[in-house]
């Protein structure tokens, strides 16, 4: 399956890091993630809830007003 192999590839090659001390819990990354990877925890900080679904589109990183998200391609 094409999509699955792409997903597996993504799993190996990307890493999402969220700086909790910079995140203000605006929810922008959560709302606009096309794959619904992210969520807000009980402290209103963004967390990576479904890392396997991430397709590395990078939109969360670009739209975070607090530059709290960093996606590194390993």
């Amino acid at each position, binding site marked *: 399956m094409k999509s699955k192999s792409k997903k597996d590839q993504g799993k190996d090659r990307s890493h999402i890091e969220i700086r909790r001390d910079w995140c203000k819990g605006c929810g922008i990354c959560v709302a606009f993630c096309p794959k619904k990877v992210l969520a807000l925890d009980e402290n209103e900080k963004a967390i990576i809830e479904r890392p396997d679904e991430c397709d590395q589109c990078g*939109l969360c990183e670009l739209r975070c*007003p607090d530059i709290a998200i960093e996606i590194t391609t390993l």
Partner: protein
Amino acid sequence: MAVRDYIRERFMPHIWCAGCGHGIVMNNLIRAIEVLGLKKNDIVMVSGIGCSARISGYLDFHTLHTLHGRALAFATGVKLGRPDLHIIVPMGDGDATAIGGNHFIHAARRNIDITAVIMNNHIYGMTGGQYSPLSVYGRMATTAPFGNIDQAFDIVGLAQSAGASFVARTTSYHATSMIKIFQKAITHKGFSVVEVLSQCPTYYGRKNRLGDAVEMMEFFKKNTTPLGSAAKEKNPDLIERGIFVQEDRPEYCAEYKKIIKKAMGEQ
């Protein structure tokens, strides 16, 4: 260079409210600069006063945080002294269209090689939500409790008729195209104006019941359309985004250099 290398991390987290569009503009401005591969020492960021103007404090370039409305005047001085540097001026409603309105039209008229990034959030955020020359007719503000009766400036039209040789509009929702527009604006030789529709959830959003930052960005997504799209013909209320003007015209520093040469020759 990693994006965070452009930030003065000691000042983070920044002062802007949760979800403020200005943070997204700063984020994508850095990314455009990173793609262009510009060195930190080749950039001068000059700002005035307002929430938007805070950008200059957070970025690790040569930075000047100047007087309200006068950022373009300072920037003009810097550019004439060091035409080799890239000058970027982040501005808000006031710096660009109220107290700084005259500097804005004249910088555009001279076509000096400066990139003006205007974060249009339709309100004065820092001072408590007063209406600005960019507030939409009928909207609420602390100083317009019954609705604003002023008409808003159209920044794109204003910049264009004042003579800017690069004029574009984007929104905080459209991150990838914002980065591309910033790249073009920074490399353009002449006065470049990029209007970014940006959300102030704290004042404009709250006063007008527009929802939180996410809902305000949804609005930008639904109510804007690429320049020249068929959608605009069907719905004239849509706000167009894209590059409106991109022309080669005599640039002020280059013209000034010619004058210096002439004067020297005639000595």
